[in-house]
């Protein structure tokens, strides 16, 4: 653990990743103190200062009703991160359990569970979430639900592949010989060997969840205004290109920075943990 951290901080690229992630996470947590205009996260209207280009007071300009863009982006990070954490916290255990039992038990269980996984995997990810949001009311809760529904199969497949190859290993046979129960073998023997891969995937997925969630709200199917969300901010600003470029460019760059940070860290983790195995 400690060694992993040292390697992470030594490599310049992963160090940049750690810094970016720290910046995004810290500004999301301490948004109330960092944002110059905390009240602008809601439906404040300031028609004197609307649609202003970046300047000394509003370093990223103001939106069409005069709210400070920088403040809103910082609060939008909060929404993105909460959504990412909740989605992964629900999708990972579900997918892991499905993959674990399908991979270890085999037979009919394997066939049914993995075909079910295939069904979810054969609708292009965004399309499934879009279809679900089309049916549900566009709220933060439902957006989390829709993204979770498309996310667990990826973990099921990852864990299934590992579990299937572990099934033949000596330590599993040994546990079977002494009469350990199926849940014990799956959860206590095989699962620990899947953890590095799961953790790495979770770091990389944090970025992807942010991408998918912002895509939903970009289409108007996610978090609704006035709640600040990076995707809906880009969508709103895109109508005023090229004159009010800051309305789209800054929220867009904010997505890029956050996801890039998580990807850098995830990449580095994959290399470190992969080499450790």
């Amino acid at each position: 653990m400690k060694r992993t951290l040292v390697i992470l901080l030594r490599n310049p690229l992963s160090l940049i990743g750690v810094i970016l992630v720290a910046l995004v996470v810290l500004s999301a947590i301490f948004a109330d103190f960092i944002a110059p205009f905390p009240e602008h996260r809601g439906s404040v209207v300031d028609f004197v200062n609307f649609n202003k280009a970046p300047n000394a007071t509003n370093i990223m300009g103001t939106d069409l009703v005069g709210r400070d863009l920088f403040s809103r982006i910082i609060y939008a990070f909060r929404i993105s991160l909460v959504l990412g954490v909740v989605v992964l916290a629900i999708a990972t255990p579900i997918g892991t359990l499905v993959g674990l039992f399908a991979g270890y038990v085999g037979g009919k269980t394997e066939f049914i569970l993995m075909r079910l996984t295939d069904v979810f995997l054969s609708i292009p990810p965004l399309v499934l979430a879009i279809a679900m949001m089309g049916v549900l009311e566009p709220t933060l809760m439902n957006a989390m639900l829709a993204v979770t529904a498309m996310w667990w199969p990826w973990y099921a497949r990852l864990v299934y592949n590992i579990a299937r190859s572990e099934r033949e290993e000596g330590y599993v046979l040994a546990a079977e010989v002494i009469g350990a129960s199926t849940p014990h073998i799956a959860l206590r023997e095989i699962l620990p060997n899947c953890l590095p891969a799961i953790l790495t995937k979770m770091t990389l997925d944090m970025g992807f969840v942010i991408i998918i969630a912002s895509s939903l709200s970009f289409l108007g199917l996610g978090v609704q205004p006035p709640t600040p969300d990076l995707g809906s901010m880009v969508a709103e600003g895109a109508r005023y290109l090229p004159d009010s470029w800051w309305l789209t460019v800054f929220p867009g760059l904010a997505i890029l920075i956050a996801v890039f940070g998580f990807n850098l860290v995830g990449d580095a983790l994959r290399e470190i943990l992969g080499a450790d195995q």
Partner: protein
Amino acid sequence: MTPVLRLLARRLGISLIVLVGVSMLIFGIARVIPGDPARIALGPNATAEQVDALRESLHLNEAIPVQYGYFVKDLLRGDLGTSLYTNRPVTQDIAQFLPATLELVLFAGILMVGIGLPLGIWSARYRGRWPDHVIRLVSLLGVSAPSFVWAVILMLLFAFFLPIFPIAGRISDIYEIERVTGFLLIDTLLAGNLAAFRDAFWHIVLPAFALAVSGIGQAARLTRANMVETYDKPYIEMAQAYGFRARRIARKYAFKPSLIPSLTIIGLDFAAMLGNAFLVEAVFAWPGLSRYGVAVILRKDLNAIIGTVLIISATFLIVNLIVDLLIAFLNPRIRYSQRGSS
């Protein structure tokens, strides 16, 4: 039966099972929709009798499994019902909008393979040196933003600030092209109208590139990772000892075995592009299936939603089938295997 044919039969069977599952899933999702679809379709001014009549004709009063039965029966006759939004058969709507999306996605797919793979090969060949670092950084940036962000940035740079490409649409209004395949790049050529072809080509470059950016990054990263592994194999060392040129080693010995795992992921990325087309089409006002999809979703048009998702999933399954077959042809272990292992 040859191994490849047996593989095809097996994959077709699984695809069919999956497609039935997808149809049930989508049908289920569409039926938990809050509100009465008949009431939504007819609007607030319709009488109760009219709503009842429509409910009856849509089989909405039956149990959901029975409704699904009717749906499958119609589907087998090639009937996906009527769109409540356009008042036309859903199949007709899809036939109109699908080619534009397919053209965009296929063009983006060509860009993904045509740019992503060479970048990956380069990166692996110069592993640890500056071309490798630059390519790795750029490809990681590519996968780090949703395609609508790339679409907006590219549009701002290459359509507004440097007005090289058009801002929206598939072709300029001045051209009237007879619709044969629905693919404008092909139809313009069939009509022998080179000016129109050029125009359509200019229109597709920017949206297709925006759609392809993350796929390019993904393809480059994967190819590099697989090739770096291959470079450690003894036969590469042997080739190097023979004094073959680095370029030949990269292409012939290191790239070929790395292509197979890359292809699987490229198939999956293609699927992602079918979804991401929703975002790019919105930015560039591309008149494709995705724009239609968003429109019908916002209007809770059930038949159209089910039809659209089903067609996209079927397209995706077909692409994956093609990729699997390609892999089977490329992989001598499958091509020559006697038992046709799966």
